[in-house]
């Protein structure tokens, strides 16, 4: 015979809740807490050594050559974030506005713009790496074929263009995401508001800046925050297209690659250091959490004022 209904109910809730909780505790919370703890220890390969306080942080921030590498990678992440803000979120907003009009063919365009989003970054990275090949890539072949051969360059092989090539490949891959998030936001704007606006003004620009943009603020918050987190976690695309060393000469090095090299060793497998790697992980993590928190907070405030 079962116990009292109340006890049975409590057991039932416990049975439902404990397995998923235990899972998240062991594989999310515990590793993240450990990541912080590990940064304060010296590491000998995979074995933890003695407690060293902030020595690992000091090493990656203030001693050479780490300090220069850290700054170099961080600067690139900042550039990537702002460039994608325009090329991905900005273009996404424009495309969403165009799709919102529901002109003939809009359904097809919507499916097309989101298609690259479902592809693996690995496929996208290799595809663009082949397209951007200096001799046989379709980009340079097309330039030469249309008499613009002077513009053909080793896109991924020179410091001036390599990072931009990665940024454009990323924008091609992901632009569908902000597009459809913005579109969903626009579709939720009540029809009465739009009718009222149509009576007031003819100017499309006023309509966008004064009505649509403020009213899709919740979508903007999400899209901006996700782009920020994504930009400072950027790893797969540069790993595939320019390699773990951020070639040429670290011109495309970003924090993700730098962290991976520091923790697990570079192309030649040397320089593996879990202590410095953990310190970098903690710094990146704290930076992302703080800034993402501020971005979300600021943008949320903007949503409420409306």
């Amino acid at each position: 015979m079962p116990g009292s209904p109340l006890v049975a109910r409590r057991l039932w809730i416990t049975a439902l809740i404990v397995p998923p909780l235990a899972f998240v505790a062991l594989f999310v919370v515990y590793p993240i807490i450990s990541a912080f703890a590990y940064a304060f220890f010296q590491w000998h390969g995979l074995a933890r050594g003695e407690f060293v306080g902030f020595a690992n942080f000091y090493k990656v921030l203030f001693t050479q050559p780490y300090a220069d590498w850290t700054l170099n990678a961080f600067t690139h992440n900042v550039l990537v974030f702002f460039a994608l803000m325009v090329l991905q979120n900005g273009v996404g907003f424009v495309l969403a506005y165009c799709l919102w009009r529901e002109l003939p063919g809009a359904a097809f365009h919507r499916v097309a713009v989101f298609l690259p989003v479902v592809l693996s970054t690995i496929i996208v990275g290799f595809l663009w790496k082949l397209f951007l090949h200096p001799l046989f890539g379709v980009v340079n072949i097309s330039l030469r074929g249309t008499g613009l051969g002077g513009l053909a360059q080793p896109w991924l092989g020179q410091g001036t263009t390599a990072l931009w090539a990665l940024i454009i490949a990323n924008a091609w891959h992901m632009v569908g995401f902000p597009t459809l998030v913005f579109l969903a936001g626009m579709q939720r704007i009540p029809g009465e508001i739009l009718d009222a606006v149509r009576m007031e003004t003819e100017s499309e620009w006023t309509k966008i800046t004064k009505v649509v943009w403020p009213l899709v603020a919740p979508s903007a918050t999400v899209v901006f925050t996700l782009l920020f987190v994504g930009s400072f976690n950027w790893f797969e695309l540069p790993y595939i297209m320019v390699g773990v060393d951020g070639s040429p000469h670290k011109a495309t090095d970003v924090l993700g690659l730098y962290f991976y090299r520091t923790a697990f060793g570079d192309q030649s497998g040397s320089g593996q250091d879990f202590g410095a790697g953990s310190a970098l992980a903690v710094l990146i993590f704290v930076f992302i959490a703080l800034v993402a928190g501020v971005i979300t907070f600021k943008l949320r405030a903007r949503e409420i004022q409306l």
Partner: protein
Amino acid sequence: MNTASQSYYDRRGMLATLGKDGLIQIILILNTVVMLAPIVIMLFAAFKTNAQIFQSPFSIPDFSNFANITRIWSQTNFLRYLLNSVIVTGASIVVILTLGTMAAYAVGRYKFRGSSFVLMFFLAGLTLPLKLAIIPLFILMRDLGILNTQLSLIVIYVAMGLPTTVFIMTGFIATLPNELEDAARMDGASEPRIMWSIMLPLVRPAMVIAGIQNVVPIWNDFFFPLIFIQKDNLKTLPQGLTTFMGEYTTDWGVLFAGLLLSSAPVIIVYIILSRQFINGMTAGAVK
């Protein structure tokens, strides 16, 4: 006079609208060309020889020439990678939906002390990039003895997927009406019975959304196999692709065929279920 100016303004309005719509169509068509061209070039190149790819990358190939695809089929581990991806993704989704529904059902359906804490606990994982905890995860997997097994991947994908799943499912489950549940309870049905026979069938749409939201990132993931899996026989498709791309560097037809075969499953399913994919993948971002 009055009517004349009226119609003049109407016509101007109409022209302006036509111009605006025309501009919008041009932007959308240009964008769609940019989005699809790389995929079409990849499709064409998979059926070409090196010479054809380098001389005329845009020409339509002879689609009956399966030489490149046959080479992948017979000379590489492609099928093995594909099978591994299916196993890992399938198992992860089943476990995510099971554990996620359990937690969401408890939090969304019952009032109990600590329920908001439980929800917070899951939501904390929502924004934390688990990649940055890769060093402790690597050591944890080693200590558990599951490095270099598919279990290590399944475990990490479940951990990654649970927060959003619990988030989506709790929101959905909490909005389900109470009447059916109460009636069953009056009839003396046990709580597990109520969940299994009455509530779960209603939760299916949310499960589809949560499933799709998880399936794409898991199927496409490269980072965790890169760290956890060394054995070639256990590699997933994106990871196997890097091995394969390294081996055939000079044979572009085979390279493009490999990319085509790797992307084809996702592209085909996406075209059939595009609405569900779009809803699922933007579900966390669209409130």
